[in-house]
């Protein structure tokens, strides 16, 4: 028994399939091998490694999902005059760059209280083995009104972010050097980071969709109704077997519906019995693509992890990254922010492995490596301790295996768990966070 499977697409020459061609079995052999390869790539079955994870390069079309679409609104930069000459992150968020997705369009809507935007630098901070800072040129519109918003300046930059081997954490920031010109402050209304793709195509799928067993074939085909064909079924000395032809046609149609996400035209009697959900209920090894959910900045912070305006007072200043005061009881989870978002139906939501988060904090108080960040979704919690990003006073936590409710609205709460039992203000500034799916 030898399961027929190709290593890459084989196809069949026109001379083997055209009118007047000699009847040979090699075209059917190629079809059987190609179908088996596609089935394994889609489902992860049979120890296939070239799975369809939407990372491009033959591993599935890129998803081109936005990384940041955040409305910030009241975040103001009103720096302390004593901090002149210090670079400030007026918006800073971590993002995990999907493998293969390297080019992005960045936009931010700003409102200046001074002359601006000449003194605002847009920088992209990427982290690999250390902080590296790359400043990107940007264009700025003249101030204009948007609905009830007045004097909005939109800055735009096109970025190329390296993904390296596997997906990579990058830190996207708008920075500004405190000076006379923008001493009066700048307001970040919203910002966006999304893949650069061509303008929307009005796709005309007018061509007929390809082979399927049509009416009056009334039996619903499932993608796994066959696992492939044996070499003996398509040997040179065998006739064209109707069972093989029917199975191959049905398998092709089922996989086509699985990939396309709907019933093929002209075959209304059939239903799609399996969906390309990545929920691993039918196929335990079905690959989960990298899907960003959201990334957010929570407030401004000065370079070096220095609190923006407040270090020891009991109140947060408008515009600064929120400080989490340590609580009276150690190991108590302190809610920082709660988001609502629908989450797709990926892997096993009850014991997940693919919903993850990155939390970025800043501090100039030294070690916080006993602190941890925690995500609470209502379906459960998952936590991770912070590790230092070298000398910039920035700390990051990567949280894995976050439980969630599949295919439904989820309440996502970011929490900080501290290890001390006394109230200390300004010790830890919560700068930004990112939620995403990743295998």
């Amino acid at each position, binding site marked *: 028994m030898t399961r027929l499977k190709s290593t890459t697409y084989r196809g069949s020459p026109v001379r083997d399939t055209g009118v007047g061609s000699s009847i040979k079995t090699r075209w059917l052999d190629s079809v059987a091998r190609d179908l088996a390869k596609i089935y394994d790539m889609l489902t992860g079955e049979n120890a296939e490694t070239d799975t369809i994870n939407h990372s491009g390069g033959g591993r599935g079309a890129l998803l081109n999902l936005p990384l940041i679409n955040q409305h910030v609104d009241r975040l103001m930069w009103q720096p302390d005059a004593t901090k002149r000459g210090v670079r400030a992150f007026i918006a800073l968020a971590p993002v995990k760059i999907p493998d293969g997705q390297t080019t992005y369009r960045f936009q931010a809507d700003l409102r200046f209280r001074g002359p601006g935007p000449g003194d605002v630098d847009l920088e992209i901070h990427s982290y690999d083995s250390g902080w590296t800072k790359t400043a990107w040129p940007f264009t700025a519109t003249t101030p204009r009104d948007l609905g009830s918003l007045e004097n909005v300046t939109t800055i735009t930059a096109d970025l190329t972010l390296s993904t390296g081997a596997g997906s990579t954490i990058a830190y996207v920031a708008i920075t500004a050097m405190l000076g006379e010109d923008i001493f009066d402050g700048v307001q970040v209304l919203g910002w966006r980071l999304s893949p650069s793709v061509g303008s929307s195509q009005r796709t005309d799928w007018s061509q007929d969709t390809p082979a399927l067993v049509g009416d009056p074939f009334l039996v619903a085909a499932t993608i796994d109704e066959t696992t492939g064909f044996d070499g003996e079924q398509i040997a040179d000395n065998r006739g064209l077997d109707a069972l093989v032809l029917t199975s191959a046609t049905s398998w092709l149609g089922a996989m086509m519906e699985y990939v396309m*996400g709907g019933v093929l035209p002209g075959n209304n009697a059939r239903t799609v019995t399996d969906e390309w959900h990545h929920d691993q209920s039918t196929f335990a090894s079905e690959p989960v693509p990298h899907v960003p959910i959201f990334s957010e900045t929570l407030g401004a912070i000065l370079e070096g992890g220095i609190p923006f305006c407040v270090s020891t007072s009991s109140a947060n200043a408008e515009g600064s990254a929120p400080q989490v005061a340590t609580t009276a009881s150690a190991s108590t989870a302190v809610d920082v922010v709660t988001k609502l978002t629908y989450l797709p139906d990926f892997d096993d939501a009850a014991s997940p492995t693919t919903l993850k988060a990155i939390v970025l904090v800043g501090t100039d108080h030294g070690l916080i490596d006993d602190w941890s960040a925690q995500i609470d979704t209502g379906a459960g919690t998952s936590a991770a301790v912070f590790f230092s990003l070298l000398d910039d006073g920035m700390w990051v936590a990567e949280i894995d295996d976050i439980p969630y409710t599949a295919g439904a609205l989820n309440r996502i709460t970011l929490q900080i768990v501290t290890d001390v039992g006394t109230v200390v203000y300004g010790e830890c500034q919560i700068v930004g966070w990112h939620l995403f799916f990743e295998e």
Partner: protein
Amino acid sequence: MALTTSTDRLTEDEVRSLAPARARIPRALAGGTRWLWELATGAPSVADERAVTPRNPDGQTGANRSGYPWGPAFRNHLWSTTGGSEGDPADVAFQRTLGTFDVGERKQWVARFRVRPFVERPLTPFSRGYLSIRCAAGSGAGTSSAVFKLARLETPDRQTSGTATTSSTTIGTQADLAFVDLRPGLNTVLITLDSVTTREIELYSLSLCQIVTRTH
């Protein structure tokens, strides 16, 4: 060497025993497999040749999960906001509000966000964004209610609306209050809070999501 491509469909009669051996059968099977390969892998089936399948809404080859026929769409986060950093750190709950709104008060948010390209047909999965909120009742007695209206900036009169109601001071979720039609690319949407009645309402977050996997 030209490889077979085809959009022919086979019927059961054509592939049963004793059916005539017609060239249509190998052409449909070999050609259809070529289509399937390109839709699944997102790459031309033959190196250095153009793909035989149509381009997806991103202008690229393959199914990119933007709705039929480009793959079942995901339930997708679109846009969100939370309050500014005005919370009191001495408050361990540390929920940052968007504000507390009095009876009769009105507030508008201008939401600007990018939507990945999708086929612009009515009722396709990515063609609507649904609003969900986090809120609680503020000062006063009784049940607080507020109307949320959604409209595109260019068509402010084409609104959908939904009413959030709560009598609890505990923060709760109000899902899918109203929807707005989306366009691929940059969208500007007006979200209006109106008609707060009976009791103050406290807002904590607003979110827009694409929520339906096939059609509405």
